[in-house]
């Protein structure tokens, strides 16, 4: 994908997030918009084909699954029309990712479990001599979970340089801003001190994200601390705690779509 295609892909993901959340009348919109660019870059880059040697994507912040569904839908990985069943009764497309879907290897939704799954997947690739890579997309609030740090230490110990962790550092969690709940300080410094190659990257700059994915340090797991804005692209949602939960109504829906289209055209 060139820069223009990537930008169009991310815009289409955002549009799908807003359309489907509105249709289904569900929340978690801000969380999904926050990772739209991360998902666009990862799905654009990952090898999704090939049974055993495909790359693995673990969406540890499972509540933002709509962003991943949107990307898989746009890449033709979901059955036609399936995206329109999001959150319908009996649909495989719920709020959190379902591994029965093509393109999703792991169910997530309980925070702080995804990095361990990805670490195991990366260790498996090493043991099997496979060049596949493992991408884990995690929320900053998952750094509150002790199990995340168990996995951080394990991955460094085993020099899993095929493991790429993307942290959605949007600075907020369900009930407040992270600096008010559990202040994370410098996440890059923390991860570096644990033996990771970690760098801060503007989380909505696709070129910078794409470059960061390519810059791999041998024998170290890699962390991209993506500085993102919760609700990115829809001004009234940006950095607003309430949009973790709220669904859109007719008016906010129209405003949101108009804003997204205007930004994409700019």
């Amino acid at each position: 994908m060139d820069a223009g295609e990537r930008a169009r892909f991310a815009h289409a993901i955002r549009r799908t997030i807003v359309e489907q959340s509105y249709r289904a009348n569900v929340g978690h919109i801000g969380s999904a918009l926050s990772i739209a660019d991360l998902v666009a870059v990862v799905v654009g880059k990952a090898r999704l084909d090939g049974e055993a040697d495909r790359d693995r994507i673990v969406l540890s912040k499972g509540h933002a699954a709509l962003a991943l569904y949107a990307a898989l839908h746009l890449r033709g990985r979901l059955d036609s029309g399936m995206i329109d069943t999001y959150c319908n009764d009996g649909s495989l497309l719920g709020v959190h990712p379902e591994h029965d879907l093509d393109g999703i290897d792991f169910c997530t939704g309980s925070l702080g479990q995804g990095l361990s799954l990805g670490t195991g997947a990366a260790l498996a690739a090493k043991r099997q001599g496979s060049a596949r890579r493992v991408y884990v997309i995690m929320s900053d609030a998952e750094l509150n979970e002790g199990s995340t740090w168990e996995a951080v230490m394990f991955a460094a110990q085993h020099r899993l340089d095929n493991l790429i962790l993307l942290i959605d550092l949007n600075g907020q969690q369900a009930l407040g801003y992270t600096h008010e709940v559990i202040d994370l300080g410098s996440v890059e410094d923390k991860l570096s001190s644990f033996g990771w190659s970690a760098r801060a990257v503007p989380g909505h700059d696709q070129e910078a994200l794409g470059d960061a994915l390519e810059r791999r340090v041998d024998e170290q797991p890699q962390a991209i601390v993506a500085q993102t804005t919760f609700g990115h692209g829809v001004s009234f949602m940006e950095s607003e705690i309430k949009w973790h939960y709220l669904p859109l109504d007719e008016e906010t829906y129209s405003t949101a779509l108009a804003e997204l289209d205007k930004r994409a055209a700019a």
Partner: protein
Amino acid sequence: MRNAFLDELVTLAETDERIMLLTGDLGFMVLEEFQQRFPDRFVNCGVGEQNMVGVATGLAEAGFVPFVYSIATFATLRPYEFIRNGPALHDLPVRVVGVGGGFDYGHNGVTHFALEDYAVMRTQPSIATIAPADAAQARAALRATTDLPGPVYFRISKRGDELPGLDGRFELGRLDVVREGQDVAILAIGSIAHEAVAAADLLAERGIDAAVGLVPSFNPSPIEDIAALLSRIPAALTVESHYRDGGLGSLVAETIAERGLDCRLLRAGVPHMPGGESGSQQFLEHRHGLSARHLAHQLEQALSPIA
């Protein structure tokens, strides 16, 4: 039993390259042979059981059959949600090996007593929950389950001496009647079955003819076999080194109730959090009514109004 189980695992790993062994930094003098023979398939995950199960899930998704090893409480309770959302939810062949069921680690105190592992593991319908009664059955159980596509929990006791009448048999989900009898049935799971057999001997001296049935697994549970046995016997006693609720006693109670059987049930097990008292396995089993003498007495008392 531990050493026999690991010895069998080494044998299987020679020809089955999917097998990996992960430990939560436990297994001194038990895991060394596997580690030396298969260094690439052995991982000490450190003291982090949640991550260990998560890593095992990732390995299993890629085709490995990872065995995760720790003391039974740490192997089941600490990473329980990882087990549920990992191998149970994804139906992956992770093997959770919990050593030291019941009071095996008696001197170590309550944190080390595994008294609810059957209950919590059997609540997950997709986890085959297996408690061998002796070393030979542990080997057989391991051999019989290598190709099961979903998760397995093994409770591996310290005690491995041969259970009379078992001859090393293991059949997943089937009741194994190790001793025939007409008057009462004693149903046991795990190595505490030795006390059940000894209790039957004591009862025989007093003219009571007790059958002893060994339940080797939950999920599948031998419901049909239990119902068939208890439909012709008026009283049964369940024996498990476990809390009285949630394990074998509960399974048998459910079976009797759902089948409408006319069988009185007594459940031997630990009724409450066992407090601060530590001691040898034998001491604690005796303390909690699980010795052969207690079991025989309990059944005798229950039978006296019937007689």
